[in-house]
């Protein structure tokens, strides 16, 4: 079928060519052309497409999906002003939350001074801009008010209204609704859903990995339940779900049995809750699996079709089985079972599968490869709260478990699809994800590939933590890719890491790992090699920082160390920068015992040799002094060399003697 238009076009072309030569064929040609193609004059039936109902955000979503993430620009939430673009993690968090704090302040004023915001210009009135009605003594308490608070998820207000209402006046439906509401939120007031930033930075992982009991014992939910004269199955269900959600497994299990004893049939959500707590009410793996099977049979008996959340709850429960083999076999069996009734796994299911299969001390399992294959083919829609935990866990597995770069890149490509970007979870999961990704790259990729991805991610999408940044620098240093170090140094300064000793150590180590000046590198306008310029910049930066700290009498964890100075000296010698090398000797000489590590002997020797070559006896004496002070074996040979090859004036001679004298005496003493 696809070739049809081409064929027609060819026929048409052919006819047309003939027509130019013989006009009469042209006329007949029209009728030869088969019917139904675009050239026929016959009227085609016009099919009006069905009206597609559009939601209010559909158009915006279509537009938003055309905007790709720009790694060179800061996140949209930050002000587009170079002075206000944050680079470090701390600054990012502070700036974003500062903005949120402004929003909160405005909100607070709106509530405190509600009388100032009573104008109603807009028609229809915009409820979101109106100050929330304050509950006062005079506020008429009605059932409708309670319903409204339930609908807008204002927990504290709803509880207050419920307390004021005459309990006989509340209809059974509202009471049931309120019970579900209180059980769902466990009486905890919720963050206003407008405060997106705060939710983003709130670590969502805490307490979710392990079930902690947060359920309020003998709280309002149980009180509401007890106040019901006739206990309906729905009331039981709400209480069981609430208890299971907030970690009171034993209570949920008791009410479940009570419910069954009364002859009520649990609903789907309740069954899902029971699967979730199966691992807690049954300690032994075997009994746990038996309970799961039994409950599934009950569901089948009741004709309730399990959904994807059922699958996820079962897998979550299995993921707590400590025996690898049992967990593995059962989870595979459950997957096959659910496939047979057409329930497709969601990202949450895959998350639990990874937890089951890729354990820290377990055997290596590559189930993730199969999962990524499936996801590339089809991305399941969001169906479960655990769906958002998948990407971080998958990248963790790529890094620590499989160490597979190709897979990690495929996973990253999946996340980069605009529709999938929201599935990253929160800031905590995002940083786990990128940390694992970058760490994997530092171990498995060469410096070119690593730096390409690094430039893409840092600093706008992700700011590396100190350890990750060190890993990047070390990886670059191991390949002696010195030409990347200047860039890394400027990043370190940009990301507020330029004053950290460990970062400076690895950066200088990396700088000194090169083999000296490279004629191919482009020098700056003063004809200074960028590597050398970086070394000077680091020296100046640290000196300046220490000076400021000293002036302001501020304690600082940063100190010059022997290895830092050693690397600097090595580099300056490599590049023949005598002045800077001398400055290092002077530094070593003055700091001496304050250095937290030794200045390396090999570099000291080299420095010394260069001093001899230049006949720079003052510097040579300083070097000897340090060697003697540190008790290096080379000091005597150095002194000998100095006597033979250097022209020393009297004072220097004296000094040398005094230095050596101290060694001879110390050696005699010892």
């Amino acid at each position, binding site marked *: 079928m696809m070739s049809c238009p081409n064929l027609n076009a060819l026929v048409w072309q052919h006819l047309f060519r003939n027509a130019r030569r013989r006009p009469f064929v042209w006329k007949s040609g029209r009728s030869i052309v088969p019917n139904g193609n675009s050239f026929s004059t016959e009227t085609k039936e016009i099919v009006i497409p069905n009206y597609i109902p*559009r939601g*209010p*955000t559909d*158009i*915006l*979503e279509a*537009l*938003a999906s055309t*905007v790709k993430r720009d790694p060179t620009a800061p996140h*949209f939430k930050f002000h587009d002003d170079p002075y206000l673009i944050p680079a470090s993690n701390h600054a990012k968090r502070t700036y974003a939350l500062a903005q949120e704090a402004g929003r909160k302040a405005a909100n607070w004023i709106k509530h405190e001074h509600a009388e100032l915001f009573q104008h109603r210009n807009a028609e229809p009135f*915009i*409820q*979101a801009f109106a100050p929330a009605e304050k509950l006062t003594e005079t506020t008429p308490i009605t059932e409708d008010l309670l319903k409204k608070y*339930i609908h807008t*998820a204002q927990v504290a207000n709803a509880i207050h209204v419920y307390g004021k209402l005459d309990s006989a006046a509340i209809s059974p439906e509202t009471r049931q609704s309120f019970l*579900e509401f209180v*059980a*769902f939120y466990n009486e905890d007031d919720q963050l206003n*859903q*407008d405060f*997106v*930033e705060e*939710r*983003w930075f709130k670590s969502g992982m805490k307490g979710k990995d392990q079930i902690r009991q947060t359920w309020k014992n003998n709280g309002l939910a149980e009180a509401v339940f007890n106040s019901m004269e006739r206990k309906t199955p*729905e009331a039981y269900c*709400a209480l069981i*779900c609430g208890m299971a959600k907030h970690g009171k497994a034993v209570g949920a299990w008791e009410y479940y049995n009570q419910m069954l004893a009364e002859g009520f049939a649990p609903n789907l*959500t309740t069954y899902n809750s029971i699967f979730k707590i199966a691992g807690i009410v049954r300690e032994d793996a075997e009994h746990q699996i038996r309970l799961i*099977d039994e409950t599934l*049979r009950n569901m*089948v008996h009741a*004709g*309730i*079709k399990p959904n994807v959340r059922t699958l996820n709850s079962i897998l979550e429960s299995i993921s707590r089985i400590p025996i690898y083999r049992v967990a593995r076999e059962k989870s*595979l*069996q459950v*997957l*096959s079972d*659910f496939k*047979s009734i057409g329930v497709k*796994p969601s990202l949450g299911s895959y998350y639990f599968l990874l937890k089951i*299969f890729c354990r820290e001390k377990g*055997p290596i*399992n*590559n189930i993730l*490869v*199969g999962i990524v294959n*499936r996801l590339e083919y089809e991305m399941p829609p*969001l*169906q*479960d*709260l655990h*769906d*958002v935990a998948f990407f971080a866990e998958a990248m963790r597995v790529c890094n620590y478990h499989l160490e*597979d770069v190709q897979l990690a890149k495929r996973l990253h490509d999946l996340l980069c699809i605009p529709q999938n*970007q*929201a599935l990253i979870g929160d800031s905590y999961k995002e940083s786990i994800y990128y940390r694992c990704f970058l760490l994997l790259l530092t171990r*498995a*990729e060469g410096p070119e*590939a690593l730096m390409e991805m690094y430039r893409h991610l840092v600093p706008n999408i992700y700011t590396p933590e100190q350890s990750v940044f060190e890993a990047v620098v070390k990886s670059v240093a191991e390949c002696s890719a010195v030409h990347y170090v200047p860039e890394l140094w400027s990043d370190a300064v940009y990301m507020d890491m330029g004053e950290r000793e460990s970062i400076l150590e690895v950066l200088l180590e990396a700088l000194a790992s090169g083999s000296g000046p490279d004629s191919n590198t482009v020098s700056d306008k003063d004809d200074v090699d960028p590597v050398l310029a970086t070394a000077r910049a680091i020296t100046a930066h640290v000196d300046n920082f220490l000076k400021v700290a000293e002036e302001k009498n501020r304690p600082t964890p940063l100190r010059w160390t022997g290895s830092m100075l050693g690397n600097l000296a090595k580099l300056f010698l490599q590049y023949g920068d005598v002045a800077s090398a001398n400055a290092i000797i002077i530094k070593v000489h003055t700091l001496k015992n304050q250095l937290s590590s030794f200045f390396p002997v090999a570099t000291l020797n080299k420095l010394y040799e260069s001093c001899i070559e230049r006949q720079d006896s003052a510097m040579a004496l300083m070097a000897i002094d340090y060697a003697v002070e540190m008790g290096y074996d080379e000091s005597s040979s150095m002194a000998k060399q100095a006597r033979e090859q250097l022209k020393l004036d009297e004072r220097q001679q004296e000094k040398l003697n005094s230095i050596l004298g101290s060694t001879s005496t110390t050696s005699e003493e010892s």
Partner: protein
Amino acid sequence: MFPTSMATSIRNTKMLLRRAFSIKRNEILARNLCFTRTLNANEDQDKSKKVVEEKKNKAELKEAKQKEAKAKLNMLLESMSKTTQKAYPSESKLSLATPKIRAKPAKPVKQPVFNTKIEPEMLQAVEDVSNMLSKENEALKNSLIAKLEDVADESERARLEPFKPNKQKTEDLNSLLNTLKVDGKKPKNKSPAPKLAPVKIEDMYGAQPSGIFSKAHFIEESSAVSGLATWDMLYEKELELAVTHPPANGFQQMIQWTKQGKVWQFPIDNEQGLDEEAQIGFHEHVFLEPHLKPWCPRRGPVRHFMELVVVGLSKNPYLTVEQKKEHINWFRDFFEAKRSILIDTGAIPDITTKSSPSLST
């Protein structure tokens, strides 16, 4: 002096012997290792678990292991020396292009022997040893050379013959090597293809279903009717919040504002939010005369006035239908109150108690 130098030279010979022997062996070992490692992967995991359990006995175990390792090493060395003395019957049967192997009778000559199979270094070492033991030096030298030649022959044979792993031997070696621990960092792997790729990709649907659902008849839509309407609503809300992040561009921000009800919704509609008015038809706003019918006289100044009022109201977009009706009713009540005056002035005909419609006809 004498015994030490002898010992060193003997050690030298031994070492050289072993080196010649092991060059080929190393390769074989490597191959064996690759071969068995994949097979043993799972077993090793189990082993390591057990080791964790037996932490208490670790110290004892360690000693025992060391002894074991030593014993194994000795055994291995012994077996090596044995194998070298073995005769190879297959040798003669194969008509491969091998160099002819002749049992060379060692000649009792003092001058250096040129031996193609054995390196001169080795021969020198042999010579040193034999010189030290002056008595039986010839015999010793001969036996040593014979041994070296054996080794050379065997390695040559191994080179030409296809490799056949000796199971017993490789197992011994593997178990020995497994007990060894190598300290120090591994060399960094910089190539993009790391590790041995795992052989089999775990198939998610590889397992046999338990058949729990095999005869199930589910009531349709049972999942939709869960009975916990509020719970489900709150879950959906939570789910949506889980993917609501700080907006990444202007459109996303507008989406959030739309969802919060702060901006006009797309597609743009002038009557958005006027839900109550949407219930009322256009005609109810425009055709208001029916409301006059129950009370208003058919002609006369009152009728004229009311018609003007109705026309005015029908063109007013700011009032709801209810307000318009109220407006009309206000006039009705007004005229009702002023009825006597109206009759006096003749604005409405003076007909006593009769219903208005009949009046107007």
